[in-house]
């Protein structure tokens, strides 16, 4: 099928199948469909949209068909994305299974693991969370101490994870566990899939400065996991984690661009514009203009890195530059948004649904330059791998 035909058929199908309620932009966290065993759909439209898209494999357009994907080429997937964007169609399903575990399983998983887990991710039946950081292992992630001791065909897992996003709402966790006690730091870690219903696994939400609790602590007390649930070889976990972190960084980066947050709109909302529609405070206007310039440069850089990757030039450590610049930019955008809103931005709760959202998302954005590797870690990576500066 030619790409033009594909585009037309895609457009027709989307027109016929995307419910009206899914053609308005998601207003916030509440409008996102995460799926999972305990998922309650926000609306019939949300359920129908997920079912129809999953049926075609279009929740994960580029995954192979045998694992519940759409089997689309990169070009076709791009067209699908463009056509969805054109009709303002929401994403039918978002999840760490799609963004992170899926790519890792496709690369490192056994055939059995792929057939077991990927289709359930694609259909939104199982919701995954990521168990990486620990209280004593943040930027120095490889020093993690959650340990797995072999007992027959099972590991007995003990330890604690932290910053586990949505652990309390998730069905399974992919966790980094030290299984090879005698191996060097980076070579003793395994990547293990654990059902959250396993006895000995428990979670506790952490309240953040935004007032929300997207993160949890996750505890393992003699929790048992089958050896067959290790992805890759025992001890290969660090390699897989690094591969997966690059996908996480890409996700955080695309958030930074697609956020849609606009201090200009904020100034209008707050009534802080003059009769010509210009931001009334000239210094703020200048700050917003400089932000716009940096956002345009960042957007162009994403396109360039994509084109270079298509041409076979590795993205490699450039992902760190994107993560660093993208997240710092997003924080700046939220700061200027708050400035433009003035006192209106300080609202914590109120009559309207969106009241308090500006402040809460501003506070949430502070985490962008911490999660998925801090800005300082990204700069270390650039210094070491791109600039090849000597270590101390």
């Amino acid at each position, binding site marked *: 099928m030619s790409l033009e035909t594909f585009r037309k058929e895609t457009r027709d199908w989307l027109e016929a199948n995307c419910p009206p309620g899914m053609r308005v932009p998601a207003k916030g966290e509440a409008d996102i469909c995460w799926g999972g065993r305990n998922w309650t759909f926000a609306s019939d439209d949300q359920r129908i949209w997920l079912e129809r898209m999953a049926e075609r494999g279009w929740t994960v357009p580029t995954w192979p068909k045998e694992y519940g994907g759409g089997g689309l080429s990169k070009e076709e997937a791009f067209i699908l994305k463009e056509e969805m964007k054109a009709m303002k169609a929401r994403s039918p399903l978002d999840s760490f299974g799609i963004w992170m575990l899926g790519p890792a399983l496709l690369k490192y998983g056994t055939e059995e693991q792929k057939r077991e887990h990927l289709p359930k991710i694609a259909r939104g039946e199982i919701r995954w969370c990521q168990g990486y950081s620990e209280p004593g292992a943040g930027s120095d992630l490889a020093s993690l101490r959650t340990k797995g001791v072999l007992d027959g065909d099972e590991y007995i897992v003990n330890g604690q994870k932290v910053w586990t996003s949505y652990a309390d709402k998730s069905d399974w966790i992919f966790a980094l566990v030290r299984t090879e006690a005698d191996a060097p730091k980076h070579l003793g870690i395994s990547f293990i899939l654990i059902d959250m219903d396993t006895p000995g696994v428990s979670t506790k939400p952490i309240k953040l400065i935004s007032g929300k609790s997207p993160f949890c602590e996750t505890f393992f007390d003699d929790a048992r996991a089958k050896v067959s649930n290790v992805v890759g070889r025992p001890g290969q976990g660090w390699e897989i984690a690094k591969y997966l972190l690059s996908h996480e960084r890409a996700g955080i980066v695309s958030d930074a661009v697609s956020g849609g947050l606009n201090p200009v709109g904020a*100034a209008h909302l707050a009534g802080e514009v003059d009769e010509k529609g210009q931001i009334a405070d000239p210094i703020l206007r200048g700050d917003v203009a400089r932000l*716009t310039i940096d956002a345009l440069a960042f957007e162009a850089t994403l396109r*360039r890195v994509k084109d270079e990757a298509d041409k076979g030039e590795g993205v490699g450590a450039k992902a760190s530059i994107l993560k660093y610049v993208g997240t710092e930019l997003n924080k700046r955008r939220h700061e200027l948004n708050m400035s433009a809103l003035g006192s209106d931005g300080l609202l914590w709760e109120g009559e309207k649904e969106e009241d308090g959202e500006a402040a809460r998302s501003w506070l949430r954005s502070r985490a962008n330059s911490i999660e998925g590797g801090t800005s300082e870690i990204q700069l270390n990576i650039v*210094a070491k791998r791109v600039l090849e*500066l000597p270590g101390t």
Partner: protein
Amino acid sequence: MSFVLNDEEQMLRDSARSFLSETAPVTAFRKLRDENNADGFSRELWAAMAEMGWTGVLVEEDHGGVDLGVSAAGLLLQEMGRTLTPSPFLSTAVLAATALRVAGSEAQKSAWLPKIVAGETVIGFAVDERARHNPEHIATTAKKQGNGLVLNGTKRFVANGAAADAIIVVARNDDGAPCLVLVDCHHKGVSRTARRTVDSHLPADFTFDNVQLDGDALLDAAEDTAGAIRHVLDVGRACVAAESLGVAEQAFDVTIDYIKEREQFGVPIASFQGLQHRAAHLLSEIEMARSIVLKALRTLDETPSQAPIWAAAAKAKATAVSRFATSEGIQMFGGVGMTDEYDIGLYYKRAQAAGEFLGDDAWGAGQVAKLSGY
């Protein structure tokens, strides 16, 4: 739009890089400076650029050019930025050639473009009348007088003005609308004062005192002259942004080489995290500038109607990044960075001057706000 260079562009860049590093390295620039060269550039080099076809990069084939487009012109300037090579390329082969292309009659093009391509003439482009760039501040007038024109006013810091044979002047006509007038620098009533600037370039100030010109001095073949002038300036901005980018890249490269070699406390200073993070941040900024400069150049070639915001944004970003890269360079070089012997200071000076030319980062930000409607 492709964000990677095609084979032709890569070849052009590679050949420009090897040519400039052999023929016009920074030592050649120093020599011009130290001998107080009256032109501010090497005439032999200008002839060599013509021989390689660079002078015709934005000239249609009908007039002897190679017409490779704005992206190619930008690539060449980026390389010249790396070697700090002064030449009339930007003023003559970019600004004047583009002005003639978009606003010149067939007769005017035939008279001037082949000369530009042959490297036989230097033409300045005179827009600014005040210290800071502002193409709306035009007080120079070109009033009708019989079949001809009479030009009055002043222009400041016209690039390559000291060596120019002619200049294209942005003036206001009887209706107060902007127009373009091509004036011979030796014409009666034209006076010129060369200005040596901090980067050892030689622009000039011009005064026009009742300069009587023939009607054919007016470049008025464009349907929308004001739009044509904006386009010429945007092409110039994207190209000088590319030069600033080259300045930033080379300054960064020599700085990184230096901090890897320089030892204090018994180790290379590049091993200190205090410098590593600054270097990595700087590289990130240079990457951003690379992308937006390329975007602006490509947009001018492919969809010029969308170019104004990209040209302004690219100019602003390249200005800020080149000044930042060179100032960080001096700091990382330490004491020797302050000496005339080391090149980093020369890059710092050029970054300042190129940044000012056709609008600095503050000016660009103002434009972006205006063009974005806020």
